[in-house]
């Protein structure tokens, strides 16, 4: 049996846990003072997803060995396991496990150890710069810097959605609205950084539109469609539900929560597509 499908699904789950855990850590450190009711829940969310992430990351070397062998017998193939552990993926996995462990320690202590949680989140989210295409290109330093900016901000934003849902659910509506507004202000500053880093990476790595005619490009287009859907949700949240929440409207709160859940699921779908893209396809195929 071909292990590729299972490996992609496993990696997608690992990405969701990893970026949820890292993002929850960032969120707690930034917003805990304004969220007395849900701080503990968010810490548990971050620590819990970090523990799941550790388990999933530890499964990846055996799954990589299985992929190298082309069947599940490779899970227990010593030489292939050694190749997996000594590869750049192995290094990234080690850093991810270290980072996730620091998140668990940072978020589980009685008083959040902010520097531990943030360091762990940065390591867990940024570890992917150690592997993949950017790790073997001549402009490695530049590409790694750009990718780091990407990954850290992805972690922050994706990981903030569930904590925001909890804030809307359990905090006073006025407090939740205040946090959402502050969050949006941060977003306004980060938008240019994300766009700049992303466009620079794309320009440095691809340089051709012909990729859009192949499987890789088609998956990118599919992701673009999801992105368009999210843009619609974003507009709805910003201009319709958030003012209602600030005004104390329970229907606006429910609608906003549904919208956040939809955003979360759509972004998780994008993460799954990303796992498939990075493991199974390349623009040259």
């Amino acid at each position, binding site marked *: 049996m071909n292990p590729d499908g299972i490996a992609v699904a496993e990696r997608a789950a690992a990405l969701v846990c990893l970026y949820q855990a890292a993002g929850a850590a960032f969120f707690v450190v930034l917003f805990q003072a304004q969220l007395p009711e849900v701080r503990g829940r968010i810490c548990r969310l971050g620590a819990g997803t970090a523990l799941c992430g550790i388990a999933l990351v530890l499964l990846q070397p055996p799954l990589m060995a299985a992929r190298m062998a082309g069947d599940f017998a490779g899970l227990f193939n010593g030489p292939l396991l050694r190749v997996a552990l000594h590869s750049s993926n192995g290094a990234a996995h080690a850093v991810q496990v270290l980072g996730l462990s620091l998140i668990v320690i940072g978020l589980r202590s009685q008083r959040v150890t902010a520097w531990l949680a943030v360091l762990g989140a940065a390591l867990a989210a940024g570890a992917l710069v150690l592997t993949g*295409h*950017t790790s073997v290109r001549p402009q490695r330093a530049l590409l790694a810097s*750009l990718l780091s900016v990407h990954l850290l901000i*992805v972690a922050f934003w994706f990981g903030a959605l569930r904590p*925001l849902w909890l804030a809307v659910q359990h905090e006073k509506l006025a407090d939740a609205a205040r946090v959402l507004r502050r969050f949006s202000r941060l977003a306004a500053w980060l938008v240019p950084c994300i766009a700049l880093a992303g466009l620079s*990476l794309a320009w440095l790595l691809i340089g051709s539109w012909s990729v859009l005619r192949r499987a890789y490009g088609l998956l990118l287009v599919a992701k673009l469609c999801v992105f368009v859907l999210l843009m619609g949700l974003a507009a709805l949240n910003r201009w319709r539900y958030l003012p209602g929440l600030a005004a104390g409207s329970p229907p606006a709160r429910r609608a906003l929560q549904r919208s956040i859940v939809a955003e979360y699921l759509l972004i998780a779908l994008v993460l799954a597509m990303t796992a498939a893209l990075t493991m199974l396809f*390349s623009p040259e195929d």
Partner: protein
Amino acid sequence: MKSSILSLCTLLLWPLAAFAHAHLQQALPADGSVVSSAPAQFTLKFSEAAQLTALSLQKQGEPQARKIEPLPTAASAQFNVPAPKLDPGVYELRFRVVSDDSHVVSGSIHFTVATQ
């Protein structure tokens, strides 16, 4: 919300940063070829150095592929692997390699050994 716009902008571009794979550039027997005599070895030439981690051969009509072992342990851009004795028929040679950047790449070539 702006958050979703930001995150998706990032996610859309993120995978572009991870596509370095060794690609099969040349194979002997070539893909789709008909050879008059069974090849003594299989040659696989890749776009960059990679480690060959699996090689199997399946004859059309046979239920299972047979693994070809042992494989070279060192990474290389070209592999020459002794072929088993082949009867006339249609074959699929499947391979898996892992690149320097840890990407596992799979592929296959089809060839026919003609009846003498």
